[in-house]
C-alpha cells in the first residue's frame, strides 16, 4: 500500500465522519488562523511603520552634541559655516543644514498662537522632502540677506489666518513682523511626529530676533541610504577637528531608528505568535483525544484489516496519516480564515495586507507536525492491538 492510497483511505474515513472531523480539527483551524493573523498584523504594522519612517527620509542624519557623555551644547558649538564646509568636503553628504529651535508667540490677522520656530537654511526643506501647497520655501538668498520671511505648516496657517493660503500676509513673530512666503503641504503621518505647529524661518532672521547665534544641531542627508554611516562619521570628525573638541559631537540617523523599530516589532510578532502557537498545541491534544476514541471505536475494523493481511506498520501509517490529513485540512481552513482576517484587519487599519508565503508554509508544516506528534500515540496503540482480541469486539 503506497502513501497516496493511505491518504485516500484516510480521506474516506474523514469524509464518512464530516462533523466530527471538523470539530476535531477546529482547534487546529483556530490556532493556525490566529498565528497567521498575528504574523500578518505584525508584518503589516511593521511595513506601515517603515513606510511612514521612509517618508521622513531614510537618508537623514543629525549631528549634535554628545549629551550621553555628559556634554552640553554651548554657543559656538555649531556655526552656519560648519554645515557648508561639511557639505563641500564630504561627498557622501548631499545636503546639510544648521537648525535652531525656539518657541514663540505668533500673530496672524485672525489669531494669536504659540508655535515652534525653526530657524534653518534652504537645504532643510530638501532634507525633509518638504513640498509647499502655496508659495515657496525660503531660499539661500533669503537667508544670506536676512529677509524677514516665514513658511507655515498648513495647520498653523489656518489657525493664524483662518484660511489655507495666507501667502503675502504679515505674521508677527514675538513682535517681529515677517511675510508669509509659503505654506507646507501636510505630510500625512499616522505616527504623529508633526503634530506640533511649526513655522520655518531663515536662520539669520531668527538670530536677529533672538540676538544670539546659538544653533542646536546640524541636520543632513546622505547621497544614499548606504552612505549614511560614512556621512555621519565624517561629519562628526570634521566638527571635532574644526572645533578642536574630541568626543564632543555625535550623530544619529533615521536608519538606526528604523532598525530598532524593526527589531522591536519583530520581537513582538514572535512573542505573540508563540502565544497563538500554544492554541495549536491545545488543538493537537484535541486531535489526539479524538484519535484515541476513534481507535477504540474502530477496533473491529483494525482486527478485520489485520486478518486480511495488514501489517502493524500499515495500521500505524493509516491512523497516523488520518491524523496528519485531519490536521493539514485544519491548517488549510485555518490559513484561509487567517488570511481573510488579515485582509480585514489590513483594510480597517489601512495597512498593506501581508501574508507571506513562508507564513503559510510554516503554518502547514506546523499543522502536519502537530498531526504526527499527537497522532503517533493513538496510531501506535492501534497497531499494537491483538488481531483476535480486536475481531471479538
Amino acid at each position: 500500500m503506497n502513501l497516496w492510497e493511505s491518504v485516500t483511505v484516510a480521506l474516506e474515513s474523514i469524509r464518512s465522519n464530516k462533523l466530527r472531523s471538523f470539530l476535531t480539527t477546529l482547534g487546529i483551524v483556530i490556532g493556525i488562523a490566529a498565528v497567521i493573523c498575528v504574523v500578518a498584523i505584525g508584518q503589516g504594522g511593521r511595513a506601515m511603520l517603515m513606510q511612514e519612517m521612509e517618508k521622513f527620509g531614510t537618508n537623514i542624519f543629525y549631528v549634535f552634541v554628545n549629551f550621553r557623555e555628559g556634554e552640553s551644547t554651548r554657543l559656538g558649538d555649531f556655526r552656519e559655516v560648519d554645515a557648508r564646509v561639511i557639505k563641500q568636503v564630504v561627498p557622501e553628504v548631499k545636503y546639510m543644514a544648521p537648525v535652531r529651535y525656539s518657541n514663540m508667540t505668533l500673530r496672524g490677522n485672525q489669531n494669536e498662537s504659540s508655535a515652534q520656530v525653526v530657524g534653518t537654511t534652504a537645504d532643510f526643506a530638501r532634507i525633509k522632502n518638504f513640498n509647499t501647497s502655496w508659495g515657496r520655501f525660503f531660499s539661500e538668498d533669503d537667508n544670506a540677506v536676512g529677509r524677514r520671511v516665514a513658511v507655515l505648516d498648513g495647520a498653523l496657517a489656518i489657525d493664524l489666518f483662518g484660511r489655507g493660503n495666507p501667502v503675502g500676509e504679515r505674521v508677527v513673530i514675538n513682535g517681529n513682523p515677517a511675510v508669509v512666503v509659503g505654506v507646507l503641504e501636510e505630510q500625512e503621518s499616522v505616527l504623529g511626529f508633526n503634530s506640533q505647529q511649526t513655522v520655518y524661518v531663515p536662520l539669520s532672521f531668527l538670530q536677529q530676533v533672538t540676538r544670539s547665534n546659538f544653533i542646536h544641531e546640524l541636520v543632513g542627508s546622505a547621497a544614499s541610504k548606504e552612505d549614511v554611516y560614512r556621512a555621519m562619521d565624517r561629519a562628526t570628525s570634521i566638527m571635532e577637528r574644526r572645533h578642536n573638541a574630541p568626543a564632543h559631537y555625535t550623530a544619529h540617523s533615521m536608519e538606526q531608528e528604523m532598525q530598532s523599530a524593526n527589531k522591536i516589532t519583530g520581537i513582538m510578532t514572535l512573542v505573540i505568535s508563540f502565544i497563538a502557537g500554544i492554541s495549536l498545541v491545545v488543538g493537537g491534544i484535541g486531535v489526539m483525544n479524538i484519535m484515541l476514541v476513534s481507535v477504540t471505536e474502530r477496533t473491529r475494523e483494525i482486527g478485520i484489516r489485520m486478518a486480511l493481511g495488514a501489517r502493524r506498520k500499515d495500521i500505524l501509517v493509516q491512523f497516523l496519516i488520518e491524523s496528519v490529513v485531519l490536521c493539514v485540512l485544519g491548517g488549510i481552513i485555518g490559513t484561509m480564515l487567517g488570511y481573510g482576517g488579515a485582509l480585514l484587519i489590513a483594510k480597517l487599519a489601512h495597512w498593506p495586507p501581508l501574508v507571506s508565503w513562508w507564513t503559510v508554509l510554516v503554518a502547514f508544516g506546523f499543522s502536519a507536525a502537530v498531526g504526527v506528534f499527537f497522532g503517533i500515540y493513538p496510531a501506535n496503540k492501534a497497531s499494537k492491538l491483538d488481531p483476535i482480541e480486536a475481531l471479538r469486539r
Partner: protein
Amino acid sequence: MIRINEARKTYHTGTVEVKALRGVSVHIRPNEFVAVMGPSGSGKSTLMNLLGLLDRFSSGTYVLDNVGVSELSDNELAGMRNQKIGFVFQTFNLLPKMTALKNVELPLLYAGVKPVERKSRAMTALQQVGLEDRMCHHPNELSGGQNQRVAIARALVNDPAIILADEPTGALDSRTGVEIMHIFQELHRKGVTIVLVTHEQEIAAHASRILYFRDGLLVGDEIVENPVDAGQTLASSVKEVSDI
C-alpha cells in the same frame, strides 16, 4: 497443504487455565473440503484462529504450504494471512463504510496490487459469487446471504491456498445456507482447499471430510462418501416451489 502436529493451546484467564486444544494432529491435503464439527467450547474456533495465523500455538508444530509458521515474525504472519489464507466469518466482518467492491479489494490493497488490477480482480471475484450487480452496494444495503457472498469473494480474491470459514451459515436461514454451500462446492470443484466449522449435520454433509472435536481433542475423522450436492438441492427446491 496443512500439517499440524500435537498442537496445544492454553488460555490463561486470571488464575484459571483453559486448555482449548490438548494435542491435535491433522493433515489436510490440497483440494480437500473439510467440515469441523463438535459441541460448543470444544475448540473449533480456537483451531481456526490458529490455522488462520491470527494466534499462536502454545506448543506443537504447524506447516502451511510447506512453510513452518512457528518461527515467523508478526510481519511475515501478516504476509502469510494475506497471501495464503482467506477468512469467512459467521458475522461477515465487512467494513460498513465501504462498498462491496472496496471490501473485496482490501486484501489486494495489502498485497500491493495496483488499483486498476485490484478493481478488475475484485469484480471477477464478485462475479464468481453471483454479485456482479451489487458491487456498489454497502453492507447495510445487502441481505445476510449477499453479505456472506461478498465475504467469500473477499476470501478468494487473493487466490489463497486455503479458505477458512467459521460457521459461515450460522447467521443465515437454511436455504441461504445451502446457497452458500453451493458456492463453496463450486470453489472446491475448481480446486480450492476449504476448512469449514459448522454445528449442522446437513451443512457438514456437503464436505468431503468431517473432523469431530470434543474437549479440545480430535475424536473423529471420516471421509464423506457421497457429499450432498447443494446445486441439486437448490434445483429441486425451486421445483417444489413451482410445483405448489
